[in-house]
């Protein structure tokens, strides 16, 4: 049993790597690039949108803007949700509109409208300028933008094989029902919820410097949750499909994810959790599978290295960062051990942040956030890159945006959002999961992301999971429940004494990462291997009422 489970986890990892559907997942990450592979198109940017954009930019400049950009978007999404043997909802949503952002004497203005007409783009451009003027009175430090190369006619599309909007609804529902039946076939399972969600975003961008880009971005998310209730009604336990990540791919991702094939395993896990032993709180070594770890990376590395947070721009909601003041950390802070390398990129095919250009027309860079354990760089937009100008010059680096600007829709102003932030596999050899487990006397292996909560400077956080396995003397034992671990970020990453190699690598992710006010939702991907952390605090989360 124990051995089978161990192998099963390994098998999941191997399958996980293939979810991306692209061999050589890591190949593109560190190589120089202009645009991602195989996704440039020969077509030119849409002429109708180009004409509207030029009209908006002209109106903004006539009204006194020194810089302007316009985004014209059409977002279409389709969602299907089911429970057991019935459909809960089928929906198809389209929203179209445009937003104009301007700088007037170094002050931002932004206005947007869902009415995409010749007259409205002029009215909204003028409104954005008027709003910037209203805000100018209180301006203490004018906004400036780092230079960016002009891209006059950029076209890019997510690397999908099959457009999910071409697949008939019956086929989608039939797929979910088949998965639901597969879960319900496991004795003790009472409830199954499953869903498919698809997005196609047409994103046209133009700015007053001459950049014009036209991109089509796809996102696909298959997911399920299985719940078992104990026979006496005293307990219920759920298992989510965290082995399957949402990706910027097409219908092929649904098929490759194999929800139907994995459903019985999710169901068995939910049932087994009912009788699992409640964890004894204390200090444990942790083996974190990448299906779980991507979320810990997201919270404790990706968010604290957002430069706008560090500088206090998000203090009222998302918070600031322990990385402050910047010059005491950049180039010297020991984030983790020497084999720890973290990269920001928007080029991995199928990862959710991958694009040709960001939402201010900048081609994203691949860059090290952590290099050989040391904090090396931070996430930037054009406005923010200049805040690090002295640092970059002292290092002989170019002062430019990393291309990390994003807006969730035409109605929202773009700002700094994370790229794909990945922990790279162990550099010298392919460390296996078996080797990681073998070195643990008293530990817990955690599979799948669960509950998560972190403070506003990204020091103290707490994570649950989906499945917990006890480790004793290098062997996987039975299942545990009611497990959560609490960390302080710097100690946690420096307590990582080994990480897995490429064979343990998986790209996890989610929709719905919130930042900004009004809160904007982002889709995030984080690639990582399995890791081992020594002596972490584990609490028991069960309460009796």
């Amino acid at each position: 049993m124990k051995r089978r489970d161990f192998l099963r986890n390994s098998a999941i990892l191997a399958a996980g790597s293939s979810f991306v559907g692209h061999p050589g997942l890591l190949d593109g990450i560190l190589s120089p690039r202009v645009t991602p592979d195989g996704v440039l198109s020969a077509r030119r940017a849409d002429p109708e949108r180009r004409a509207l954009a030029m009209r908006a930019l002209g109106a903004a400049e006539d009204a006194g803007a020194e810089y302007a950009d316009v985004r014209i978007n059409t977002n279409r999404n389709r969602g299907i949700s089911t429970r057991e043997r019935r459909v809960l909802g089928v929906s198809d949503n389209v929203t179209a509109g445009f937003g104009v952002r301007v700088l007037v004497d170094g002050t931002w203005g932004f206005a947007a409208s869902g009415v995409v007409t010749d007259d409205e783009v002029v009215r909204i451009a003028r409104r954005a300028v008027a709003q910037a003027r209203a805000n100018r009175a209180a301006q203490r430090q004018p906004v400036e933008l780092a230079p960016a190369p002009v891209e006059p006619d950029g076209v890019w599309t997510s690397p999908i094989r099959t457009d999910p909007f071409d697949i008939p609804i019956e086929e989608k529902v039939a797929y979910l029902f088949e998965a639901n039946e597969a879960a319900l076939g496991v004795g003790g399972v009472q409830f199954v919820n499953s869903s498919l969600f698809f997005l196609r975003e047409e994103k046209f961008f133009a700015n007053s410097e001459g950049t014009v880009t036209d991109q089509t971005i796809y996102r696909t998310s298959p997911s399920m949750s299985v719940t078992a209730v104990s026979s006496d009604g005293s307990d219920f336990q759920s298992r989510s499909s965290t082995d399957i990540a949402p990706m910027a791919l097409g219908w092929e991702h649904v098929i490759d994810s194999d929800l139907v094939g994995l459903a019985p395993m999710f169901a068995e896990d939910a049932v087994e959790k009912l009788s699992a032993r409640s964890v004894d709180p204390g200090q444990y070594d942790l083996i974190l599978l990448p299906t779980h770890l991507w979320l810990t990376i997201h919270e404790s590395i990706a968010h604290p290295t957002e430069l706008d947070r560090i500088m206090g721009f998000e203090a009222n909601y998302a918070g600031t960062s322990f990385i402050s003041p910047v010059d005491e950390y950049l180039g010297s802070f020991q984030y983790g051990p020497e084999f720890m390398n973290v990269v920001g990129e928007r080029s991995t095919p199928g990862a959710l942040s991958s694009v040709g250009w960001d939402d201010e027309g900048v081609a994203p860079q691949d860059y090290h956030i952590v290099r050989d354990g040391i904090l090396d760089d931070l996430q930037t937009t054009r406005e923010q890159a200049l805040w690090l100008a002295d640092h970059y010059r002292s290092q002989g680096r170019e002062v430019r945006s990393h291309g990390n600007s994003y807006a969730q829709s035409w109605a929202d102003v773009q700002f700094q959002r994370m790229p794909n932030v990945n922990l790279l596999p162990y550099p010298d050899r392919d460390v296996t999961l078996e080797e990681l487990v073998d070195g643990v006397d008293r530990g817990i292996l955690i599979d799948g992301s669960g509950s998560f909560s972190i403070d506003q400077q990204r020091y103290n956080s707490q994570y649950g999971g989906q499945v917990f396995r006890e480790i004793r003397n290098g062997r996987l034992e039975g299942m545990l429940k009611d497990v959560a671990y609490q960390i302080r970020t710097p100690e946690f990453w420096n307590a990582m004494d080994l990480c897995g190699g490429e064979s343990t690598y998986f790209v996890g992710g989610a929709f719905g990462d919130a930042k900004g006010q009004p809160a904007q939702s982002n889709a995030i991907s984080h690639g990582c291997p399995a890791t081992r952390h020594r002596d972490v605090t584990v609490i028991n989360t069960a309460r009796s009422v």
Partner: protein
Amino acid sequence: MGSTNEFLSEDEARRITDRVLTLSEADHCRANLSSAMDGNTRFAQNQMSTSGDINNTSLTVTSAFGLRVASSTTNRFDDESLAQVVRTSEELARLAPEDPEYMGELGPQSYPDSDSYYPTTANLEPEERARAIAEVTEQAVAEDLISTGFLVHRSGASCVATSSGLFAYGLDSRVNFTTTVRTEDGTGSGWAGTSVNDWADLNTRELGGIAVSKAIQSREPRDVEPGRWTVVMEPTAVGNMVNLMVNQLSARAADEGRSFFSAPGGGTKLGEQFIDERVTIHSDPQDPRIHSTPFSGEGLPNRRTTWVENGVLRELNYDRYWAEQNDREPTGFPSGWYMEGGSDTLEQMIASTERGLLLTRFWYIRGVDPRTILFTGLTRDGTFLIENGQITHPVKNLRWNETPIFMLNNIEMMGAPVRISSGESAGLTPAVVVPPLKVRDFAFTSISDAI
């Protein structure tokens, strides 16, 4: 017509829904319209950072053939787009499997009057937002502090019409304002905020003053031991916790055995006293303290509902299907709620506390165990030690793992309810009115260095 011409009037809304219902070939059809003008201004480092003014109207068409049902949404209103959104919803519906729980569409209903629309809010311009924010930034600059914050407002209309003759149209205005003020050395942080419907009710100078004084008082916090503490909770912290319980009031989840409100051995906790007898929570679209829309998305009237009375669970949230299965009336869902309080002041709560903590608000609240509504989160922006009836010094923030059920069983004192900014992102959330509380044995599990 809205006074700003920025969203649909009742006549305009009716023209669109009539057109949709005329185009419809389905057995049942529903049109939902949402039309609003949104405005916002953010500030950071004592100046405006970004702002936005956004017009949008969206239409969702739900079509059903027998029990096959689907919906489609658009924000385009030319003839072709209207025909397309109706056609898409019908195509999807024809292909969808039968939904045995589809209840059809409602006929005409009568709704309580609820007037939460204010021209003062609808006519708000960026200049006025900037002036209101300057009331905060000027105080911060004067004290060498760094202010950040967010002012957001929305005014607009929502509308529901069905092929069975229902038509409902309502107007609403909302404003939310929050500010976080930090010390330049990064060792202190204070917060204040609230929500209103009428712009004239918002006093940013007063809120800025609270955040400024909390920032100054919270400088250089000391450690305290995690564990069980007596806490004096300001209303925002109370609302953060009680919201978690209000969101779990689904009758169906309770009946299915996967909720705190499930009774052991089957059934629900309806009629049981499960928290302190001083706790009473109601929702009511007509109550001016907790204004909300008088109808749901399906067009159901949102009636006054008492969810908890003297600690007894009086009502759970029944949708139309589950209500029919259980021979009950559907309840609608509380959009905004009011929790009764007591006569104690915050000062009296502090004065009566030998050793405890004063909490301003909570952050990053996430579910841990749905069986007990156990959540985790952290204190933030103003956490203080109380010793012998007095605030003695600021303390480091703490992570808690706690359930609103335990908290509402451990009440020692209650104050007068006030309206709060109830969402973590300080967006335009429903009106929530809660009292400050003094509570014993609140469970903290670790210290955070975050300020």
